[in-house]
């Protein structure tokens, strides 16, 4: 009996301690920003036009600009006169751990909000919904996935698009040959050199590769949307106050009618450093995300 009580007492004490820590952690990021006068933003080096470098350790892009607006709002909220932004380049492999361990305060790259990741990190409300699409040569006459029967379809090894194609093939009985590039540039080369008739990938990646190609007019993005994924700004999980502040700033940006302007700037106009035009039209899914701000994971988008 006695030992059981001891354990109980121990558990209660531990619980209290954890509770105390949690209370402290609730405003951890805001405290850190206020006391240090600086914030660390996670960015990608080459995710044009979402988040990329324009040279000399400068970063820019759709998500980066939105994050700067969010941080400006938080700076005002904290009553600070200046806020220094440190840019920390991240990769697909290290972005989640870096947010978890506090190296990065706010990640503004191209991270899909899904159930698995939501166990480790928090996601702000979605402002960009990625759609998996088909890119083909403009003169190929292909306009739909059903026309890909017997054709060669390129996609990139190690992406979710491979599984998506496999499922689609099985479900609809459209048989095509898959060819795999080892990265997006290779996959696009397969399409360019005629080794593949189509390239299936995230719409922004397709648009970016086409915009960067020798003759962008030779390609077009066609057909139905194969899958949708919400891409969201990532924050720490155990800091609901910071997430609320970020979401409040996002709501303000949306309410001020800035989103269509931002879309025009990054997706439909020439962007630095090479003044290419990505040329990706605003999708109904993204428009819908702006109208109904939410942080639903990808799993909710693809429910049938």
């Amino acid at each position, binding site marked *: 009996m006695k030992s059981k009580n001891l354990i109980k007492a121990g558990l209660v004490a531990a619980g209290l301690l954890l509770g105390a820590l949690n209370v402290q952690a609730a405003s951890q990021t805001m405290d850190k920003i206020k006391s240090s006068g600086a914030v660390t933003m996670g960015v990608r080096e080459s995710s044009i036009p979402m988040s990329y470098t324009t040279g000399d350790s400068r970063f820019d892009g759709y998500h980066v600009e939105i994050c700067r607006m969010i941080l400006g709002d938080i700076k005002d909220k904290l009553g600070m006169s200046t806020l220094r932004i440190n840019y920390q380049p991240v990769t697909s492999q290290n972005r989640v751990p870096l947010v978890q361990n506090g190296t990065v305060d706010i990640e503004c790259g191209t991270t899909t909000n899904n159930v698995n990741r939501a166990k480790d990190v928090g996601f702000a409300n979605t402002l960009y919904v990625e759609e998996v699409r088909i890119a083909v040569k403009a003169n190929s006459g292909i306009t739909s996935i059903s026309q890909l029967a017997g054709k060669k379809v390129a996609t990139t090894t190690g992406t979710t698009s491979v599984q998506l194609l496999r*499922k689609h093939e099985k479900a609809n009985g459209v048989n095509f040959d898959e060819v795999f590039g080892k990265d997006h540039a290779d996959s696009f080369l397969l399409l360019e050199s005629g080794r593949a008739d189509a390239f299936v990938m995230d719409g922004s990646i397709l648009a970016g590769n086409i915009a960067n190609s020798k003759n962008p007019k030779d390609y077009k993005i066609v057909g139905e949307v194969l899958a949708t994924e919400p891409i969201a700004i990532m924050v720490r999980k155990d800091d609901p106050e910071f997430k609320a502040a970020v979401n409040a700033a996002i709501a303000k940006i949306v309410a001020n009618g800035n989103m269509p302007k931002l879309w025009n700037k990054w997706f439909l106009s020439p962007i630095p450093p090479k003044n290419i035009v990505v040329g990706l039209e605003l999708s109904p899914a993204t428009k819908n995300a702006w109208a109904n701000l939410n942080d639903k994971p990808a799993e909710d988008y693809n429910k049938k």
Partner: protein
Amino acid sequence: MDLGIFCKSTLDGEVVDHCFSALLGIGQNADPSYLDWLMKAWGWTLAVAGLGLLIALTLGAVMGTLRTLPAETSLNRFLVRLSTAWVELFRNIPILVQVFLWYHVIPAFIPVLKGFPSYLLVSIALGFFTSARIAEQVRAGIQSLPSGQRAAATALGLTTFQSYRYIILPMALRIVIPPLTSESMNLIKNSSVAFAVSVPELTLFAMQAQEETAHGVEIYLAVTFLYALSAFAINRVMAYIEKRSRIPGFIVSNSEAAAH
């Protein structure tokens, strides 16, 4: 560790009835499991490596022999230069670059190659790359023979072709079996570059399956095991060949050790 991942379907991630369903043909229309896919990928690795090995051994033996031809006639001198150029060309370019050259660049100049399947082009690339290395080993084997052997063959009235056929190559090729073993095992491992040009082999399987299942540790362990097993199988086959081809009284018969 959860090896159960290999019994899951590649389509929906659910556990399938029979792990080997698709391969063994149990239960028609059964979805393939990751184990099925792994086995298929292993098959591609072995096919590409096997075809590459065939090309490498044939060309390597020929080019290595040509490099040692006596500079007696102008044809011989031309053949020596040709084989030297072959070796220097193919051993000085990284294998990954060669694979890309065969897949993307050369077909742009020789359109008929566009119709070749990618596994064939990779086998050619692997075969040519390895043939340059094998050629050097064959040359070293031939040159390690005492010069008196060649002189004796000539004294007997044998032509150059005959002295290679009956005297030099039977001795030299036995000597070079151990380094050929290493080169053949390397070829299995080098075949992993085939993933870069869309051959669905083990490395491609590993990269794709770990993304889909988030079980990278189990996937990479399985792939590691299969690469090691394949290379070791080559080692055993070569050791067997080495043992069976041994002739009492020849140089190699002094060595009791099997191929390493």
